[in-house]
């Protein structure tokens, strides 16, 4: 909102330093955005929050200044003299859509002389319009007056050329579907039934609260004018303005809750100025339909609440002065409270809390101390936070960078890879980024896209992880938001599996990590697995296949994994316990076993574990697998591993270790058909 320095002076004395004023306005709610010189005037740019439409006119800003500096405010009291015939005699007004237009008024002035508006008015309008519209020009005296009153009090007006209104009537109605409308800006707009129009007997002559039509505007040939002053639905005005991408100073104000009393004041003010500067005679009475159903209710301001909420005490007299200067009227009071009725232009003041804010901002927030003793309180770190922090430490320690990617992705990505859910993803009504309107059901496609971006930047070594939510649709209600760790690496399956195992070690998760084959379109048929932790589904791990790489334009191999973070939290040992360590040396035995290809390592390891007393077996270390079909036959492999044995009560003898080895060998032979080599 641009205000003119000279204009403001009409209502309040501006003897203070301008910069100080700008600062005080900023500190009391009208943020100062800048000031520029326009000829011999100043245009001061003030940011007005959406709850203060009263400050979208000079009078409202002047009132703020008067309150801040404790100065008198002088506002004109327009009283145009009507000497013409009864306006309702041969003109009718109907509101067909009261939900879009609660009240509509019109006054008719006949026999005006169209010409230039007075120089002072042109100059003040120039100050507030020229800085935002470089080719701004005054229009004519009638139109300038409606704009002047708009910028004076914030109530938008519109002037019609009465001769262009067909059928001697105004109908406020919903637009017909597909109805065409040529506005003053000479663009044609297609209207829809949720939009409100001002129509004559035959066609719309204005989009309510937004813009008038080109062929009903006041021109040099206009003789009689109808001045509209009305209230329009803020939601409908906003929707219309958005839908048509047509924004005007009028629509900006109608989108907010305007002063219902402003309708008559503004009409009177405009009529008075037209009579003064354009001549003509004002018809007796008003075209007036509908009513604004709102009137302010008294509010009780308990003085004790000032200290209770603001933390400072303010004198009763100061509280009262502020409230009354802002336009509230005192209706009743007692020792502990003031009862006031807020002014009609402050629809945001309806409760004690609203008045408290007024008192605080005018009294000055700088008076609230910033060094009071806030009581101490214990804070708690959730297990989830501890796990997430440790996870990041672990992942970065082993060389992975953390990435953050968008939650909403192109729908194709959810079709390429969605192992957690077979349901169609949730979609946003409008895309978040170009082409992206699906709530992701996996982090993997996003991470592959990051690989592609880094490839295009010729970055080697793209090793990334992300911890974020995926959104799994449910049959009804809110989706399941699953915190997920996603990982991508340029190295192979074994590497990434090692990463997951390392993560489990970092959390001292003792449970079994199980691996099953699973088929995923994106992944290599052999290197595609589903993971289980302690029997519960934990995640997915695999290498992207050639087609998958191609679909993300990747030239180099990529491995991907995703695991559920809730299981990490569930199984993590966050407070590890000490156990007594054996002081006796460990001994190791290497074993080289020939067995069928069908026996997986996990089966072999389980057999070994079962074969040995748990307290003796400290570790099983896989060494390598090799094959010699000439000697061993087809579908047979040799697996070399080491077992580490230790007793807690004495040194394990060579004979004991050999005996354990024999138990292992016997178990492998019995359960898996494997044989010790050599």
């Amino acid at each position, binding site marked *: 909102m641009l205000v003119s320095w000279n204009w403001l002076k009409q209502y309040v004395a501006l003897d203070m330093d301008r910069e100080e004023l700008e600062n005080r306005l*900023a500190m009391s*709610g009208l943020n100062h955005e800048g000031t520029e010189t326009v000829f011999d005037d100043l245009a001061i740019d003030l940011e007005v*929050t*959406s709850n203060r439409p009263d400050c979208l006119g000079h009078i409202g800003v002047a009132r703020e200044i008067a309150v801040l500096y404790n100065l008198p405010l002088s506002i004109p009291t327009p009283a145009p003299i009507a000497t013409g015939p009864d306006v309702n005699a041969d003109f009718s007004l109907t509101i067909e859509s009261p939900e879009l237009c609660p009240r509509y008024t019109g006054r008719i002035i006949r026999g005006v002389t169209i010409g230039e508006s007075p120089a002072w008015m042109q100059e003040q309008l120039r100050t507030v319009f020229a800085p935002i519209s470089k080719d701004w020009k005054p229009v004519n005296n009638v139109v300038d007056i409606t704009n002047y009153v708009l910028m004076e009090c914030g109530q938008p007006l519109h002037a019609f050329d009465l001769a262009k209104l067909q059928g001697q009537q105004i109908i406020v109605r919903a637009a017909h579907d597909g109805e065409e409308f040529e506005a003053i800006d000479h663009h044609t707009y297609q209207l829809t039934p949720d939009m409100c129009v001002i129509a004559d007997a035959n066609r719309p002559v204005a989009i309510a609260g937004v813009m008038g039509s080109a062929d009903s505007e006041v021109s040099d040939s206009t003789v009689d004018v109808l001045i509209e002053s009305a209230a329009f639905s*803020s939601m409908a005005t906003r929707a219309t303005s*958005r839908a048509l991408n047509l924004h005007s100073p009028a629509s900006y104000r109608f*989108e907010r809750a305007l002063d219902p009393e402003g309708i008559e004041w503004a009409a009177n003010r405009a009529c008075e100025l037209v009579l003064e500067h354009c001549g003509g005679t004002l018809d007796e009475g008003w075209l007036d339909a509908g009513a604004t159903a709102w009137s302010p209710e008294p509010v009780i301001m308990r003085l004790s609440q000032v*200290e*209770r*909420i*603001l*933390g400072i005490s303010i004198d009763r007299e100061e509280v009262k002065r502020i409230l009354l200067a802002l336009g509230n009227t005192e209706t009743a009071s007692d020792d502990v409270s003031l009862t006031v009725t807020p002014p009609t232009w402050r629809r945001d003041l309806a409760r004690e*809390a609203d008045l*408290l*804010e007024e008192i*605080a*901002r005018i009294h000055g*927030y*700088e008076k609230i101390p*910033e060094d*009071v*003793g*806030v009581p101490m*309180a*214990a*804070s*708690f*770190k*959730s297990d989830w*936070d501890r796990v997430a*922090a440790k996870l990041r430490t672990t992942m*970065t320690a*082993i*060389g992975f*960078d*953390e*990435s*953050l*990617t*968008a*939650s*909403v992705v192109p729908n194709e990505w959810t079709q390429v890879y969605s192992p957690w859910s077979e349901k*169609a993803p*949730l*979609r*946003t*009504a409008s895309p*978040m980024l170009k082409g992206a309107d699906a709530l992701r059901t996996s982090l993997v496609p996003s991470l592959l896209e*990051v690989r592609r971006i*880094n490839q295009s*930047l010729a970055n080697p070594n*793209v*090793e*990334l992880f992300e911890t*974020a939510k995926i959104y799994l649709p449910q049959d009804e*209600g*809110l989706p399941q938001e699953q915190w997920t760790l996603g990982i991508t690496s340029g190295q192979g399956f074994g590497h990434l599996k090692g990463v997951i195992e390392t993560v489990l070690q970092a959390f001292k998760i003792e449970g079994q990590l199980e691996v099953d084959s699973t088929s995923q379109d994106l992944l290599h048929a052999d290197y595609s697995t589903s993971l289980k932790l302690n029997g519960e589904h934990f995640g997915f791990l695999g290498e992207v296949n050639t087609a998958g790489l191609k679909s993300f334009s990747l030239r180099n191999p990529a491995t991907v994994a995703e695991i559920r973070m809730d299981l990490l939290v569930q199984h993590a040992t966050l407070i590890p316990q000490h156990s007594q360590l054996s002081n006796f040396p460990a001994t190791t035995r290497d074993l*080289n076993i020939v067995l069928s290809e069908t026996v997986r390592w996990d089966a072999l390891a389980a057999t070994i574990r079962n074969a040995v007393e748990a307290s003796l077996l400290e570790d099983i270390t896989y060494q390598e697998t090799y094959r010699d079909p000439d000697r061993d036959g087809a579908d047979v492999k040799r697996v*070399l591993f080491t077992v580490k044995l230790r007793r807690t009560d004495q040194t394990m003898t060579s004979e004991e270790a050999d005996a354990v080895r024999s138990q292992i060998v016997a178990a492998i032979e019995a359960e898996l058909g494997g044989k010790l080599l*050599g």
Partner: protein
Amino acid sequence: MALQEFLDQLEQLVSEAETNFGAAESTDALEEARIEFLGAKNGKLKAVQKLMGTVEKQDKPVAGKTFNETKGRIESAFEVAHARIQGDGSDTESDSQFDPSLPGSGFKIGRVHPITQTIEELKDIMGRLGFSTVDGPEIEDDWHNFVALNIPDDHPARDPLENFYLATAEANSGEKNPVGLLLRSQTSTVQIRVMEKTKPPIRIISLGRVYRPDTADATHYPMFHQIEGLMIDTNVTMADLKSVLRLFATSYLGDDVTIRFRPSFFPFTEPSVEADYYWNGQWIEFGGAGMVDPNVLTAVGYDPEEVTGFAFGLGVERLCMRRHGITDIREFYKNDVRFLAQF
């Protein structure tokens, strides 16, 4: 010879050699022991090496590998004993080829994303001030994102163009999404969820991703991170708010700062303010704040006559950009590994 037998002999040799070298008290004794185990002609190691010929062919790779390891272990045991007997003597020998300026063995470490780093720091600071972190859903319903936050039906913040509502019908599959759900536009939703389940006193921060339809440019991104604080108790005032924000900013910036309030407008607080901090000779926007609106307290079942509270919210990206000199918000979500490596 069986492989295991061979391996056992090697293991035994190591332990014998270690014992002997360890027992040597003079250069001569050690030399004697060296010849016994490592002697080129008749050393025990040499003798065992000859046995390798008798190991089965398929076991040769393992046998060879283990033999070499064993040799290394015995040699290093000798070196240790030698150094012990010589005192500093062995360290005085010059290695003219050694270049200490060569780079050490490198380790690749990863980086935590700068946004996460910022969030963690803010969480730490607020934790020291007694605020615990809470988490909540990113997809929200009308009640938590608007109604309970005192945002009425006709408020511009509810405009479909200001929010990412979920599509109500899936054109292709015919499946229906629940009506009125949206990606949360603020993390205050989590505060509502906590207050609905918890009695005062409350001291929490909620943080995470929020979504608003902005065209992505250098300073806007349709997804960003917010951190919001909430304190509710029987006697919380705006002076407490200002004091907590001052401690917060002072902790974050590492030096004493002062806080200024400018009036603002948020539906869920009354009074509402923009908080600025004074730093390096200028006022810098910190975030929005205010006293929790009585309607919000009522909506979650609190009595505004019993308790009061404050809330504040900060944009994480903006703080992070200012702190690290990042000029384009889109860098955060591009994940150029060179960018990530800078933090």
